[in-house]
């Protein structure tokens, strides 16, 4: 290696400083919001004059916030299940299938990650107005699926590509039928990919704002939409509390994923 730490001399302190600045840039806003959510000032003064949990209390008791959280959670869970099922089926076709237009189809499945979200949202809005999906739970599910499925397709395709189909032949010759082979051999072998697909799908729905804003009605608002609307009408520290909860949920899921990845890595090392 050319750029070893020892050869850098004093310049390495410049690099350390740079790294610290980048981290601060990424983390400070989140830490700032988390601190504010525990501050007693209604106008979010910093530093907070006193510490309190009342904004969390309000978040839990105000029915508008509680409903929004409950909706976001239900939505994210259903989107997760559907995304893994649909994305998994698509991944099998893309990895195992030998048909014309396979590459085009693959690009098509990943397209929602590349097309600007606002365009997806507008298109979906126009379409759902026509078919009456607008402002319905099903409309939310459909909209979030478009965002989530590409994650599933990519994660599950990757782990399927690393799975030797000869293992399925071995299971078959051992006497296992198709379903038993799928259940006992294929799915456990691609479990890390399935878990990653589930986590990313959940987060894609849980954090989603743009599509949700178009899809929302006054009665049906996800947590990010609720935050967005209340940010415009009444600036309250409850938003900070909600943000902190969102971040916490994401952190827990990413930690889970990291844990399973290191475990999978360790069992491969042995």
């Amino acid at each position, binding site marked *: 290696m050319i750029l070893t730490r020892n050869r850098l001399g004093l310049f390495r302190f410049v690099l350390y400083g740079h790294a610290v600045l980048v981290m601060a840039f990424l983390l400070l806003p989140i830490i700032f919001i988390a601190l504010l959510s525990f501050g007693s000032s209604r106008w979010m003064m910093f530093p907070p004059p006193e510490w309190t949990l009342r904004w969390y209390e309000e978040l839990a008791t105000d029915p508008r916030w509680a409903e929004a959280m409950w909706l976001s959670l239900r939505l994210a869970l259903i989107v997760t299940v559907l995304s893994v099922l649909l994305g998994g089926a698509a991944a099998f076709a893309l990895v195992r299938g030998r048909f014309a237009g396979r590459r085009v189809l693959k690009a098509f499945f990943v397209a929602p990650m590349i097309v600007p979200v606002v365009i997806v949202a507008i298109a979906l809005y126009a379409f759902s107005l026509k078919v009456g999906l607008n402002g319905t739970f099903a409309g939310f599910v459909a909209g979030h699926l478009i965002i989530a499925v590409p994650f599933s397709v990519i994660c599950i395709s990757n782990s399927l590509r690393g799975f*030797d189909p000869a293992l399925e032949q071995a299971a*078959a010759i051992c006497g296992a*039928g198709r379903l038993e082979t799928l259940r006992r051999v294929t799915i456990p072998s691609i479990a890390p990919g399935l878990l990653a697909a589930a986590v990313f799908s959940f987060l894609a729905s849980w954090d989603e704002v743009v599509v949700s804003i178009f899809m929302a009605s006054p009665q049906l608002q996800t947590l990010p939409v609720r935050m967005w609307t209340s940010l415009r009408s009444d600036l309250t520290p409850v938003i900070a509390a909600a943000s902190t909860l969102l971040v916490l949920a994401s952190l827990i899921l990413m930690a889970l994923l990291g844990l399973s990845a290191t475990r999978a890595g360790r069992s491969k090392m*042995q």
Partner: protein
Amino acid sequence: MKMDTPLPAVRLMDLHKRYGDFAAVDGVSLDVRKGEFLTFLGSSGSGKTTTLNMIAGFDDPTSGQILLNGGAVTGLPPQKRNIGMVFQRYTLFPHMTVAENVGFPLSVRRLSKDEVNSRVLDALRLVQLDRFAGRRPSQLSGGQQQRVALARALVYEPQLLLMDEPLGALDKKLREEIQIEIRKLHHRLGVTILYVTHDQEEALRMSDRIAVFEHGRIVQVGSGEDLYHCPATAFVAGFIGNSNFLRGSVAERRSDAAIVKLGENSAVCVPVDAVGGVGSEVRIMIRPEEIKLSHALSDAAGAVIPVTVRERIFLGDTISYEVATRDGQSVLVREDRARNQGRCVGPGTDAYMHIAINQNRVYKKY
């Protein structure tokens, strides 16, 4: 059917497999006896693995029939054929322990836990890996993994065991060790084994009979000795053992023999049935160890061809020569050191090569 002829374990009847215009398997018919160790030998693309896959049920034949113990299995999925198989690649299930892998076919058959455990242990003892029952496949060496795969293929006592180049990924020493182990298991269990390899030495070492594949067909079936001594075609002769081919053309046909000219100055007599018309090409196959070199013409039966010795290599128990005929064909000769003693045919000297022409080794074309 007569009562005293037992049903063949496997009967292949005019098996074909086509991919578009390409015939991967082009009319294979074969009976495999119960308890036999039969090897499919051929280079890659010769149709041996495709044939094995059709027996396993992974591929459907385009036409033809496969009978296992007299019953047609064409169209039956692999899981209903009750066949054991060891693959070329390591196909242990990575998320299961060794014991769970070996127990998999038993749990699929819904055997009780106790029975599964005791039979798994027996199978692992068979391949001397019972100490590794709790390990993951990734913690085993390649040779150990293939032995576990062998235990998994034998644990449900299938009547037929298919092996698709199972030792291809292992180094030479380990390969020979496991070859002997498989051979012993075969004697002990009496299971019918169909073994695929491209390694002629492996085929000779292990098999009761060998079926040589070329271009999707079986060109010859027989014991290793049959194939070595009486190869049906020049291809078989070249594939099994070391061989020399002398090129020549038919100069004269008489009622009892034909004269084949090898270049300008030498000619040999061959059986007339083995060659075509005057002027046609002929190949004569001679094993290196069947050639005698000497400085003097002897009156032994057979043909004598003058040669020049190009190289002499001392190999301990044998001495190997490379000699050239007058028309420049290179021939490999191997002599026992004991037989050779006292005589020294050095490089650069002229000598005579004494050969016995065997009717079975004269081919009209390569």
